[in-house]
């Protein structure tokens, strides 16, 4: 190992999701096969073709004091809650620069969102229209900007190595974590707080996604609506929340005696260059990301025993993903336990990579793959071993997991994690 090729490990995790207000309750919900999807009961939902979503289990104002919360978009509130959990979980007691912590110049944050502060933007437009210019909040811009969650988390922990926000729709969370791994690997930082967040449950995004025919309209059966890999899947269910990890150089973690969950091996990236929203049907772009992952890291296909699939429950996307896995890994796919946790959490867009990284890390740490629910009839086009209904134990010895995320625009980001 040289100065520009540090091993990166995961030392902290945090989440606030439709299944729970922290990573432990989220994990418990995943293993129990619980759905976080419910009816939207707001008045505005009545007019929409889609009236279901996966709201967070714990409202952020129950956690963040109101004077602080009112200056943050809901997406930043989620990110802060998950980041505070991850930071404490990593064993840090104070901000960077304080006793027992990391140097501020060696701490970064990379927190992404697919859409940013959309409810702030639309809410303040309502204020402008109904109450006039003077009543528009002076906090509007710092709340709606997509880098706001990352900046708020960076200020919270005194991170000065760099605060970044890659934006790639539903791949944003994974891209953030991949970027953070590179910051540490190349020596820019010793510790990076990274992940994804999203808070887009509002009539406008729902109307827009619904008009694209991207969302499930199973309004009569919210808990059965998100059904990745099932023959009757008919679109994604919108979720909200955040998942955050603390990434750290192996040396830094060892020096402070930190508990290590697993290694963050690296990332594989590619772009489809096909259509602005439709997945490339053969999985060509996803295959390229997987191939790049194998070429640029020391990951071996034989080690990979678990995949947290992107699998949003759309007819085309789920098939293209499995085709790509089969195309690149061949028979090695047979020993991979494939889980689609969006069947339980819904699709958190830019937050998906965050909470699914938390799930992948915990799957390796506890050696158990969470189930995929709602697969009554596995699509015969899904040529892979999907973990159905109940969690499945993962083998002993050195094992690795992949977390896939793909985004509108044709962004493909695959992350790999491995037991230590």
């Amino acid at each position: 190992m040289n100065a520009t090729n540090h091993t990166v490990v995961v030392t902290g995790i945090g989440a606030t999701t439709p299944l729970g207000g922290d990573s432990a309750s989220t994990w418990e919900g995943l293993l129990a096969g619980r759905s976080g999807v419910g009816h939207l009961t707001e008045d505005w939902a009545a007019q929409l073709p889609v009236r279901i979503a996966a709201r967070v289990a714990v409202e952020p104002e129950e956690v963040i004091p109101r004077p602080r919360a009112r200056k943050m978009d809901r997406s930043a509130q989620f990110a802060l809650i998950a980041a505070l959990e991850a930071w404490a979980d990593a064993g840090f007691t104070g901000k960077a620069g304080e006793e027992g912590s990391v140097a501020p110049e060696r701490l970064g944050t990379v927190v992404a969102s697919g859409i940013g502060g959309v409810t702030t933007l639309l809410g303040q437009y309502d204020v402008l229209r109904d109450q006039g210019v003077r009543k528009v909040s002076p906090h509007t811009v710092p709340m709606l900007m997509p880098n706001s969650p990352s900046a708020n988390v960076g200020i919270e922990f005194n991170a000065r190595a760099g605060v970044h926000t890659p934006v790639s729709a539903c791949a944003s969370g994974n891209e953030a974590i991949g970027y953070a791994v590179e910051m540490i690997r190349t020596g820019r930082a010793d510790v990076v707080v990274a992940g994804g967040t999203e808070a887009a449950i509002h009539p406008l995004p729902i109307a827009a996604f619904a008009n694209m025919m991207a969302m499930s309209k199973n309004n009569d059966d919210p808990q059965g609506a998100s059904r990745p890999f099932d023959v009757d899947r008919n679109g994604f269910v919108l979720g909200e929340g955040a998942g955050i990890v603390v990434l750290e150089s192996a040396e830094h973690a060892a020096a402070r005696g930190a508990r290590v969950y697993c290694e963050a091996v690296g990332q594989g990236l590619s772009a489809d260059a096909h259509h602005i929203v439709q997945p490339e049907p053969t999985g060509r772009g996803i295959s390229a990301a997987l191939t790049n992952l194998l070429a640029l890291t020391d990951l071996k296909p034989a080690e990979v025993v678990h995949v947290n699939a992107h699998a949003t429950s759309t007819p085309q996307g789920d098939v293209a993903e499995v085709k790509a896995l089969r195309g690149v890994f061949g028979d090695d796919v047979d020993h991979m336990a494939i889980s689609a946790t969006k069947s339980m959490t819904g699709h958190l867009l830019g937050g998906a990579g965050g909470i699914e990284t938390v799930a992948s890390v915990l799957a390796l740490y506890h050696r158990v793959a969470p189930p995929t629910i709602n697969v009554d009839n596995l699509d015969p086009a899904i040529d892979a071993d999907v973990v159905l209904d109940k969690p499945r134990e993962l083998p002993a010895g050195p094992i690795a997991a992949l977390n896939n995320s793909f985004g509108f625009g044709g962004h493909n980001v695959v992350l790999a994690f491995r037991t230590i």
Partner: protein
Amino acid sequence: MAANTKEEILTGLAEIVNEIAGIPTEDVELDKSFTDDLDVDSLSMVEVVVAAEERFSVKIPDDDVKNLKTVGDAVSYILEHQED
């Protein structure tokens, strides 16, 4: 509407600062600095001003806001400029 007394203005400002910055109303005293003592940054100060304008029937132009460093500055300004 009758003009507010100095005490009424202080009480009203304390409620506004409590709502915006979460500071207990009894801590909002005449000699306190908005920025240094009451956690009201320049953005939140705009919110305080807009709320005060509405509550006390007063116009506080942007150019005058920068002179309102303490709660006492704001109370005096409002006392002087309120419409009755």
